[in-house]
């Protein structure tokens, strides 16, 4: 049992294991299933993640409202041209994140991670980093358990709902989960995983949830692309030996307080932020036929 990042880290340290071991153990106890059954369940989630991260790279996927679509393919085609600024890994991760978000907006099948609105960040992070680090499927599945351990702590002590905490709670939680997963795949310690999660959350602290027309489309898809980059750079900082000055649990608490302090207009009501710009309002009228 663990309720905080500190408890999770201490459990892993005392057993001299990775975070995923503790998370799987907890899940076995919670669900009364065998370890194999629990791992198989996560494998199924990874399969759906892989499919949604690929689908919109191969073909243009349009959202139901028509507001977004085709950007994942656009970015992937651009990456293949070989002239990117950020390099293959970053741009491929961005394209995959966009793909998941576009598939979601087109009523395709995705895995909420932790939410549907932020469903592109974790898949693109573990698939792309897994590729780069030459990890097996089993190792990627383990990284997903590490990510869910971080998500459990955020959901328990703060929130992962945009309506409650703004986009920082959804895309922030997803990036924190992803950053920890990447660090663990790269061989980092439990402490390094928490450091990466802290940095990712801090990087996005205060971000509002302001979807145009209230739909999970814009700016959500692009924030998934930026979210996976946040996860990658947070992991990179930590792998270089850099620490978070503020401990993970305190960052989570701060994120929650910031979320509570956000006015309602900036928490998924589509009444503020870019949703309330003249163009945002015009698009809402167009899309909802008002």
């Amino acid at each position, binding site marked *: *049992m*663990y*309720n905080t990042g500190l408890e999770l880290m201490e459990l892993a340290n005392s057993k001299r294991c990775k975070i995923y071991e503790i*998370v799987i153990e*907890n*899940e076995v106890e*919670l*669900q009364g299933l065998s370890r194999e059954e*629990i791992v198989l*369940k*996560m494998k*199924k*989630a990874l399969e*759906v993640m892989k499919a949604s991260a690929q689908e919109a790279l191969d073909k243009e996927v349009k*959202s*139901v*409202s028509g507001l977004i679509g085709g950007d994942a393919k656009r970015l992937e085609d651009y990456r293949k041209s070989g002239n990117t600024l950020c390099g293959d890994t970053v741009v491929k991760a961005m394209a995959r994140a966009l793909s998941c978000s576009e*598939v*979601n*907006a*087109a*009523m*395709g*099948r*995705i*895995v*909420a*991670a*932790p*939410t*549907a*609105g932020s*469903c592109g960040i*974790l898949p693109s992070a573990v698939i792309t980093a897994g590729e780069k680090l030459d990890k097996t499927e089993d190792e990627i599945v383990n990284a*997903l*358990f590490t*990510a*869910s*351990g971080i*998500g*459990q702590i955020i*959901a*328990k002590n703060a929130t*992962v*709902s945009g*309506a409650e905490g703004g986009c920082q709670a959804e895309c922030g939680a997803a990036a924190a*989960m992803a950053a920890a997963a990447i660090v663990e795949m790269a061989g980092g310690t439990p402490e390094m995983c928490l450091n990466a999660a802290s940095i990712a959350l801090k990087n996005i602290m205060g971000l509002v949830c302001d979807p145009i*027309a*209230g*739909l*999970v*489309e814009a700016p959500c898809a692009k924030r998934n692309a930026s979210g996976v980059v946040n996860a990658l750079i947070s992991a990179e900082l930590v792998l270089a030996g850099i620490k978070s000055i503020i401990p993970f649990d305190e960052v989570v608490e701060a994120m929650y307080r910031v979320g509570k302090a956000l006015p309602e207009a900036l928490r998924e009501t589509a009444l503020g932020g870019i949703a309330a710009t003249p163009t945002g309002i015009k698009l809402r009228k167009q*899309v*909802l*036929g008002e």
Partner: protein
Amino acid sequence: MSGLSSFDIIGPIMVGPSSSHTAGAARLGKVSMSIAGGNFKKVVFYLHGSFAKTYRGHGTDRALVAGVLGMETYDDRLKFSLDIAKEKGIEIEFVEADLGDVHPNTVKIVFYKEDGSKFEVVGSSIGGGNIIITEINGDKVEFTGDYPTLIVKQKDVKGMISSVTAILASQNINIATMRVTRRAKGKEALMIIETDAEISDYVLKVIEKVENIISAKAINPVK
């Protein structure tokens, strides 16, 4: 970690775009359908609040219909549910409505049965794909569909609760939560019992045989 699963964080596997407006809506449809039973030829959805405002963009309409057709939240066919309903000859209607002081994502689903009767269920999608059923044919209720749920209609006379709970105990079924309401003293009353173990047809038959029980229905959890 007090009940919060890894798969609450990484999951559910669902058809997008919104856990509340799509996945939750599909569950509302499916749970309502299991309460109403099959054999309906027409369904009218009265959409309230945010459901009414954004149902087309979120696919709430398709998700609700997919649910009443028995589909799960991750079913690829969810997107085509309106066409599937048409093929099956089921008439579907959506009405934007003010259902009063209820959760913003609330729907009243009215089933028109083959035998000419009507069945009404009201429920809300309360976030993350979770739902709550709040009304059945005008009776106030409160349950989520996460647990096996027993819905018993009985005459409001003494001893009914103990008869039903004794049957559950004898079948080794533990009660998680229970709620009893009545229309008026001595008239019809309703028992909603959430349990830890599934309720078999046999248990239902035993309960239905008890004097003054009008009907008993079980809903298996819809994930």
